């Protein structure tokens, strides 16, 4: 949000407004009031924003799940708050648990750790130096020594310096030591996926790199309720887990989330809506795109779609997906990550092995292009609902 140089009066007003809203959970950015807009207009080169300059709305609409009744009282939370809640529950119940990474002490750049340092102490929620290989290596050591390690990588795009520690060490610790040592107590969290303006290094979805690594678990939630339950499962799981959090959903996704701890099982894909004509598979943000696509397909084509949230990328729930494809005969997999070598290729390959004779059409992958994630071209790059809709049309008419 652009803020012009504030005059003292304007600054006062803005400060007053911020003061009142200080207690609110979400960070409020005040656009300058009418005075500010006038100031903008006074500048000769600055006309009111044209259509080309206005930033686009999100490519999806977050669809909240119904309020869960089986886990006790719930509270309205967005995605980052549901993460905080999971971490809060963990620190409360597990005295060995520690949370660390860059900037986690003040609450984190996405506010996932707000309040935890004050509540649980600076020896349990602390900043590390700026070094991803160190963060993960350190986390492995904490886990090997028997404590619960929750490491934060600031953006999934920056996880690569830690790739050696994750792939060569964390994933293989148990196997190579004959089960004498392991780092099952390690969970790595990282913000993931497109955010509208993230460009090359704040938008990546690197799950495919890690899917190729036996010994790891890779988990991606679609919503706050899922995030808390899946994160708690990852933390409890006795294998090193990577938990990718769709950053575009941090504030946009709001649900009624149970306050008490609960777990959602790993490696179990969820059928969000049943259908008979096409199976749609995705994870994270893209689920909300596919849900909309399913409605469009029903309305405009009379096609009934079965939507599956994979949730766990590794090990993935082959059975649920294949069972669905056996029923529908058509499969569409969609993800933001580039199509070549993306995780859709693994699903596609396995499904054609298991369900070859059931297939009515080639398996469709609607994914990002084989380019780095672009900045200004994001609206063209992402696998939006129109591309998915068109792919369904092609499959139906095959």
């Amino acid at each position, binding site marked *: 949000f652009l803020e012009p140089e504030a005059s003292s009066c304007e600054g006062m007003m803005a400060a007053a407004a911020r003061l009142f809203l200080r207690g609110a959970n979400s960070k409020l950015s005040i656009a300058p009031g009418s005075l500010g807009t006038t100031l903008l207009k006074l500048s000769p080169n600055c006309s009111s924003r044209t259509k080309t300059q206005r930033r686009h709305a999100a490519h999806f609409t977050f669809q909240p799940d119904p309020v869960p009744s089986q886990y006790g009282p719930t509270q309205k939370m967005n995605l980052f708050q549901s993460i905080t809640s999971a971490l809060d529950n963990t620190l409360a119940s597990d005295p060995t648990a520690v949370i660390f990474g860059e900037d986690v002490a003040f609450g984190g750049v996405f506010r996932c750790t707000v309040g935890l340092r004050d509540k649980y102490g600076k020896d349990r929620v602390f900043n590390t130096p700026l070094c991803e*290989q160190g963060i993960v290596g350190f986390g492995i050591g904490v886990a090997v020594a028997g404590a619960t390690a929750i490491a934060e990588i600031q953006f999934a795009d920056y996880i690569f310096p830690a790739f050696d520690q994750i792939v060569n060490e964390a994933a293989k610790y148990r196997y190579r030591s004959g089960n004498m040592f392991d780092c099952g107590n390690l969970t790595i969290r990282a913000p993931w996926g497109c955010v509208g303006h993230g460009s090359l290094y704040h938008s990546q979805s690197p799950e495919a790199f890690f899917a190729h690594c036996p010994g790891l678990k890779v988990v991606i939630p679609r919503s706050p309720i899922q995030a808390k339950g899946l994160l708690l499962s990852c933390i409890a799981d006795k294998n090193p887990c990577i938990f990718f959090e769709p950053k575009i959903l941090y504030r946009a996704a709001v649900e009624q989330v149970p306050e008490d701890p609960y777990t959602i099982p790993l490696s179990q894909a969820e059928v969000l809506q049943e259908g008979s004509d096409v199976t749609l598979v995705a994870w994270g943000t893209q689920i909300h795109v596919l849900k909309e696509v399913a409605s469009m397909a029903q309305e405009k084509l009379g096609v009934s779609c079965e939507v599956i949230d994979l949730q766990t990328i590794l090990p993935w729930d082959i059975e649920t997906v294949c069972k669905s494809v056996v029923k529908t005969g058509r499969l569409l997999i969609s993800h933001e990550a580039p199509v070549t070598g993306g995780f859709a290729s693994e699903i596609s390959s396995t499904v054609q092995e298991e369900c070859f004779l059931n297939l009515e059409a080639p398996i469709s992958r609607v994914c990002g292009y084989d380019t780095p994630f672009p900045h200004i071209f994001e609206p063209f790059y992402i696998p939006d609902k129109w591309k998915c809709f068109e792919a369904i049309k092609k499959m139906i008419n095959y």
Partner: protein
Amino acid sequence: MIPQDYLGLAFFSMLCCFWPLGIAAFYLSQKVLQLQQTFDSSLEKPQFPGASAEFVDQLEFIQPNVISGIPVYRVMDRQGNIINPSQDPQLSKETVLNFYQKMTMLNTMDRILYESQRQGRISFYMTNYGEEGTHIGSAAALDPNDLVFGQYREAGVLMYRGFPLDHFMAQCYANADDLGKGRQMPVHYGSKDLNFVTISSPLATQIPQAAGAAYAVKRENTNRAVICYFGEGAASEGDAHAGFNFSATLECPLIFFCRNNGYAISTPTNEQYRGDGIAARGPGYGMLSIRVDGNDVFAVYNATKEARRRAVAENQPFLIEAMTYRIGHHSTSDDSSAYRSVDEVNYWDKQDHPISRLRHYMTARGWWSEDDERSWRKQSRKTVMEAFERAERRLKPNPELLFTDVYQEMIPSLNKQRESLWRHVQQYKENYPLDLYEK
């Protein structure tokens, strides 16, 4: 942008009698004041958050002091005589004999296993020739519960802690007695009971891990320390920088033990670094550091003992750079005559060897005679050979173990792969060496 301190707002609001806002703003302004440091620009001291040294008005680059670098601490001279009696740890005869026997046993095992690789009995081996002092001296200074992270040339630490010869052999032969279940190349030892974390091939990865383990151990409050071994070559890895920095900033009870043996395979130290070795890097991280004569088992012992005591008492890391020499080849895949002279190797073997220096110390005290030497050599060789023969005869582990421990639990997809292998092997069994493996 100057951060909002609310004082102006407080004053203005109270002037307008808008009390709720005024009082709230005043309260907040006081909180902000507490958080801010007092900046006094009247003083001519630097106020930078990043460093708080003095100003200087002469342009001068700091000279890295390579010629007369950090001195090498030693207790014995090359002939095993104590130089400064106050530094003699005055260990009992029993302890010193144990040091000697562990070093020589290691040496004997190395000779036999190196030969066994040459004869095609095991696939690979790495000797510890010349570095036995670094292993035994440091291991002896630790508590048995202290956690050890190694690189690959620290077998003496395990030996000192009591790892049986049968287990060394089992790992090298990858037989059914291997604690590691036959999954890794030889010399990738590990022992849960002896608190020695299993070795992995990627270099320096253990360094930040050791920092994390030390942090967890600190929180346990059980007065344990962690030691992390690595070579001067591995110290060039990014992971080493990460581990040093993390351990210092997070105040970990950790000893970094660098075996500077002159070579990283064929790369000599003057191609590995340009500064004053590894010890000189410690102060850069805010770490207490020392350089010791790695071939002087007492110097290694004293330094490690003191570092351990203080690391635990003060929750800070220590860096020990043990200067030594790699007398053997890097591994059985290396022939070091390709990059260094036989004369150089002979000097270290004959003139400055940790085992010889300790023997001179012992014989000078009448603790070890020629007869003792002869009978010990015979006995240790016999013990090693017996373990060797047992290991040779043992079957390899059950191939089922190919598939376990990937995760804590067996997962369906892996189970399917396992079943598919068995079906295949059933059909093509004559092409698979099933007889060598346990059923």
